[in-house]
């Protein structure tokens, strides 16, 4: 019996192994050291084309991965180095330096970004959440309203952010006659709503049917089923969507240029005065010839990067703690 005629498995059966020294080596040559042993029937032959293709593609994938990491790592390293060196208490408590003046901070921009994101979230989270619940739980899949809403949300989630700014400019700034925190919040909310709507609907649809049946079978009404069973089960997915939307809104610049503008002082009236923000501070200060302002822009970049990092970690922590809907066996 020759080994090469064995298709699979049989070669491992001792009974079919050729006796020692039998000329059974047909799969590649053997080195002098194992001349007395028959070659393993499934020995790896590295000269075969498929091994070369395998290792070639592995090396290619690795190289391209490192290439993709180069800009990412260099941006992070630069932001950490330049921004990190600026960290101090004054950074968070002082107003930005006037042109050519040393020192200063970005307290008003940090507070401004917090205010803008809070206003935007207060508008977008309830609307997006309810729209998502409507799409996934209330509307029948064939209903034309649901089709239109879900199509609109998908289109809007790809909306160029500057259009949200122009829209809020027309709707809020022109009607109130002033750039304001309120206008900026509306612009950011327009960007957040579709993201929250779609991720909420997706998270709700992922809740297994058997859980809904259990609740309905217990005599829960539709509201009780959604509030007490479906929403808690989907909560980590919904939270992920909200954090995604918030961290996107926090870093947006274009919509704020048309709505919140910038303000050199601490936030004042929310409806009638412009308001500072980290993103617009970076936009304004990164192109100026004054070192102190450029330094502040680096520090603002670092804060935005760290905020995005914190949002990401929060999502991971919540997802890890979320109860699995899978049955453990």
């Amino acid at each position, binding site marked *: 019996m020759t080994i090469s005629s064995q298709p699979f498995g049989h070669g491992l059966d001792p009974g079919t192994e050729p006796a020692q020294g039998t000329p059974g080596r047909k799969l590649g040559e053997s080195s002098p050291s194992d001349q007395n042993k028959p070659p393993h029937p499934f020995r790896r032959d590295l000269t075969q084309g498929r091994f070369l293709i395998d290792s070639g593609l592995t090396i290619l994938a690795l190289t391209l991965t490192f290439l993709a990491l180069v800009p990412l790592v260099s941006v992070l390293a630069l932001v950490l180095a330049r921004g990190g060196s600026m960290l101090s208490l004054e950074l968070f408590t002082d107003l930005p330096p006037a042109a050519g003046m040393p020192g200063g901070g970005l307290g008003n921009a940090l507070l401004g970004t917090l205010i803008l994101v809070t206003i935007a979230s207060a508008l977008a989270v309830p609307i997006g959440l309810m729209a998502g619940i409507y799409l996934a739980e209330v509307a029948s899949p064939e209903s034309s309203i649901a089709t239109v809403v879900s199509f609109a949300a998908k289109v809007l989630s790809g909306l160029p952010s500057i259009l949200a700014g122009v829209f809020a400019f027309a709707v809020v700034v022109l009607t109130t006659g002033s750039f304001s925190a309120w206008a900026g919040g509306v612009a950011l909310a327009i960007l957040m709503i579709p993201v929250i709507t779609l991720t909420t609907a997706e998270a709700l649809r992922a809740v297994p049917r*058997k859980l809904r049946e*259990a609740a309905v079978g217990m*005599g829960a009404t539709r509201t009780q089923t959604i509030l*007490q069973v479906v929403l808690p089960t989907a909560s980590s997915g919904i939270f992920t969507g909200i954090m995604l939307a918030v961290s996107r809104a926090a870093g947006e610049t274009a919509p704020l240029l048309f709505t919140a503008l910038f303000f050199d002082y601490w936030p004042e009236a929310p409806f009638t005065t412009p308001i500072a923000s980290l993103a617009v501070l970076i936009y304004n200060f990164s192109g100026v010839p004054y070192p102190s302002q450029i330094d502040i822009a680096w520090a603002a970049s670092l804060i935005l990067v760290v905020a995005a990092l914190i949002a990401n970690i929060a999502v991971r922590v919540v997802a890890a703690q979320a109860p699995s809907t899978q049955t453990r*066996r």
Partner: protein
Amino acid sequence: MSTPLQDALGTPASSQTTTAPLINCAIDRLYYGDFLAVRDSHVPITKGTITAFIGPSGCGKSTVLRCLNRMNDLIRGFRLEGQVLLNGHDIYAPEVDPVAVRRTIGMVFQQPNPFAMSIAKNVGFGLRLNRFKGNHQERIRESLEAAALWDEVKDKLHSSGLSLSGGQQQRLCIARAIATCPEILLMDEPCSALDPIATKKIEDLMLELKKDYTIVIVTHNMDQARRVADYTAFFYVDTTQGGRTGHLIEYGPTYQLFENPLHETTARYIRGEFS
């Protein structure tokens, strides 16, 4: 605990005699949209007994079971011709609130489906829905004891219901269903996802629960029907002839249906000549 429906249904309608079944399920035609899923299936359910629905896949036995607590209402296009009388009252009457029906008739599903919350909260779910005024802790303990799960979970009532094994989860679902003291317990293939040891425990539990509840169980397993059921209903659909409409072939005391079936189809099914 009494729900409005229970109060309303507690006194049987005047025409009832003491031997009348607890549920009189009289399905003439049951549609999903244009599709006639079940026809001509009249099954009485006797109080304090276990009734098993057996038959091949697609014969409509689960559909009929889900008619008994109006779970089919969730399915688009569901339509019933006929009536389901509970203590003489039609639960498909226009004025009936299906939610109230489901609070009187508990259900246990094929897949164990505890909620993603603690064991105690799972069992207390129905109590909270019903705004139960009594001692929740006590009722939760009683229910878990009745479901033969208390000893296994008494030290971890606050860990997730999903941390239990499949068999324990199914007993948790039974505890959850009986916590609100329903009159009737519907079980839709409760053991099909379980190993033989867990199945044995559920079967023992069913025989125990029979003292307090009326149980209807759908099962693929004829031996299980023989072991636990007092009455058995055999449903059938001849898919080989292109049939898609299930219907009742035979209903009777379990021993009679298995030992001395009236219909040739029943006999052949019980002999395992088709499945």
